[in-house]
């Protein structure tokens, strides 16, 4: 049976190791600052006992005031899962750190998020749209797209 880890215990651990990461344990997920995202994910991937070696999903949600990026992490060796979220304020010129250097699978999902929600990822090797046809205007999964 897959274990769902309690975020508060992990948040306490992360605060010890990375004091300036400003991690919050919400009910069911870890909320981190965008600036600390890569260091927190690296920590979750490499720490023994956590070993989240697989990013099973990456997406974003439009909440009008802010965009929430959702990272669902999976540990294949320890059979446990965990959700990490981060928030980008505003609606224009959104930048998030790319996690392709940590999880290769983020490549296409970040491209999809870029194309459908208009969030750009700094450090992505090849941030081009690929789902919709050339010349398509707008970001269709945004709530103000009609």
């Amino acid at each position: 049976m897959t274990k769902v880890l309690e975020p508060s215990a992990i948040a306490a651990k992360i605060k010890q190791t990375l004091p300036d990461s400003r991690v919050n344990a919400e009910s069911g997920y870890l909320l981190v600052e965008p600036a600390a995202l890569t260091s927190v994910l690296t920590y979750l991937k490499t720490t023994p006992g956590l070993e989240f070696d697989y990013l099973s999903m990456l997406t974003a949600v439009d909440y009008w005031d802010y965009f929430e990026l959702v990272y669902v992490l999976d540990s294949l060796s320890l059979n446990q899962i965990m959700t990490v979220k981060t928030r980008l304020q505003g609606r224009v010129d959104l930048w998030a750190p790319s996690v392709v250097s940590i999880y290769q699978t983020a490549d296409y999902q970040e491209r999809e998020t870029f194309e459908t929600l208009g969030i750009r990822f700094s450090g992505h090797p090849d941030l081009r749209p690929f789902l919709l046809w050339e010349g398509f205007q707008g970001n269709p999964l945004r709530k103000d797209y009609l």
Partner: protein
Amino acid sequence: MEITPGNQSELIHLEQDTFEGLEIERLKKASQATFSDPVEWMEGVPKGLLLTTVDAVLGWARKSSMWPAVCFPACCAFEFITAEASRWDLSRFGMEIVRASPRQADLMITAGTLTWKMAPQIKRIYDQMADPKWVIAMGSCAISGGIFASSYNVVPGYNHLFPVDVYVPGCPPRPEALIYGIQMLHKKIMQESARRKV
């Protein structure tokens, strides 16, 4: 950008992408209105002994050997595959051969949601089919776009691209429903003149 042996393939892709985007925009603009459903067959075949006999023979031949073209963009295809397989056995109606080449097919069973990105290919398959040809719109998405009707990338019904003969509702329709639709089409073919307008 300068073309070098290193980036040649990439540039060709870019060119193809641009061409594809223009083609899709053109088709989308041209397909805003729907085709009206063909109604000439309702007037029945012209009277006269010779014509009626020829029409009957030709109609029987056409309905008994309808070969479907491969046009299965989404999940309704599985119901079609089930209808084709041994339990429902479409070969009872002379339809066991699904042609990969549209030039050898008479019937297009449009099983599934169609996106605008896929639309030029489907339109091309239809255009390549030899006359006489018929179309069955299978499932909600094929009829009207279904639950995706107001989406940014879904064609709201195949009748935006070409005229449709029979609509089979359902999400997805069961094989029985599809077979019923095929039988309706058989009846229609028997009633229409062999000199139908194409």
